[in-house]
């Protein structure tokens, strides 16, 4: 919503193709949601006060509100805790709806910058979380500088990168995959 804008959602923008896209991207049982609210009652996003949280996101998805969902960054604040999946009485796997919206968003470059940072680290080092100064920290715990992961095995890392190049990352990464 624009700052100072009027608070009304135009339902004529409801887009069946967007619903289809989300269903193909993993939210296959989306349409069965009965908006009972169970997921929203204990979702950390809702408790923390994000404007869009699971119940609303699922509903907006069933209405096919593409622009609203892709512009709002709330889906990226989902904890992936899966409590919604555990409690949803219709087994629609609400968390998969979040992921489907994210998947649709990255395809149109509508995601927070730190998403790319994680992907870049994952590709370059094999680790999405790759904080500076780890060598020092490892020394304190009496461990060798580098862990025996993809970081230490260049051959393996190259193979891993080849695997990643065989995914959609190849198309959407805003950084060179070499």
């Amino acid at each position, binding site marked *: 919503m624009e700052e100072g804008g009027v608070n009304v959602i135009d339902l004529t923008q409801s887009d069946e193709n967007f619903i289809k896209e989300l269903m193909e991207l993993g939210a296959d049982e989306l349409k*069965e949601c009965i908006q009972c*609210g*169970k997921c*929203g*009652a204990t979702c950390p996003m*809702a*408790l923390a006060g994000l404007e869009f949280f699971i*119940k609303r996101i699922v509903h907006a998805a069933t209405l096919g509100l593409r622009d609203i969902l892709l512009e709002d960054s709330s889906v990226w604040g989902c904890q992936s805790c899966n409590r919604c999946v555990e409690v949803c*009485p219709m*087994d629609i796997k609400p968390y998969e709806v979040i992921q489907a919206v994210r998947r649709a968003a990255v395809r149109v470059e509508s995601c927070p910058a730190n998403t790319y940072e994680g992907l870049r680290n994952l590709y370059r080092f094999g680790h999405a979380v790759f904080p500076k100064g780890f060598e020092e920290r490892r020394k304190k715990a009496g461990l060798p500088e580098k862990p025996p992961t993809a970081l230490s095995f260049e051959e393996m890392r190259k193979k891993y990168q080849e695997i990643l190049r065989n995914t959609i990352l190849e198309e959407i990464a805003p950084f060179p995959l070499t």
Partner: protein
Amino acid sequence: MSKHHFKEYSPHHPDVITSMEFERILSATGPTGGELKRPSDGTKPKTIAMISCVGSRDERYHRYCSKVCCMYMLKHARILKEKYPDIKIFLFFIDVRTAGKDFEEFYVYTKELGAKIIRGGRVSAVDVKPDGKLRVRGFDVDLCSPVEVSVDLVVLATAIEPPDGVEELGSMFTATCGREGFLREVHTKLYPVETQARGVFIAGCVQGPKDIPESIAQARAAAAATAALVIPGKIRFEAVISEVDRDKCSSCGVCVPLCPYTAIRIVEYKGKEKAYIEPALCAGCGVCASACPSRAITFHGFTTEQIMAQIDALTEA
């Protein structure tokens, strides 16, 4: 339904009870003599939460709406509020379903008495707090926010279920159960009390969740249908039924288990075993006629000659 399926609602806690149990607590002939006491310590609860759709509208248990819970939750709230106006009551609904004569009025009246209605709010968790209170966590669609409330007693409106053994009972007279395990009527609108088995009628919750007025109406309809069958003193058959030409029958018995109405049995005819279709039971579905390898069964109204003639007429054009 037992509360123990619903682990997210702390079912091990004695103050989490079902509506049936609550009904007993409210009853003058119940274990507390009608006095409101909570099970754990016998004290009178000051705050009560009631949770709807527990096991109903739920793919993991029952997809159907149990139909009566919204109303009896309101009824419980009303009784409580009339008797103990100081008690705080929170009713958690997904939707408040009060369709029907006088029901909406009842809903509004209960609200006027001061019961708090939370909608769009299937409860997600009941936490046990160290002070013995229960924290109920739901969602309020009207506030557009998660909500929580600490209460002394939690009442779960658990689903109406078909009783054990219905399937077995039905199979004794070829009545079948639907997906949800209730006995199936022949047609929802046109034959609401009739079953597959002629002469067997159903009424009440064995056919699906329903309230008292509806059960009574259905029971009266079933009684009338029975009377209509019995009073003339004779039974009229369908005109379109199947019949065995016993001279052609090879006694293979293929048709016997196929008949959904158990109308076919093997009887002796000219010293041999032959199939026989009981006209009073045959519903004219024609399954046997199409399966008979000896073409010994005639489906009246659809004889081989008639069907061949139809095919000829169609192919000529």
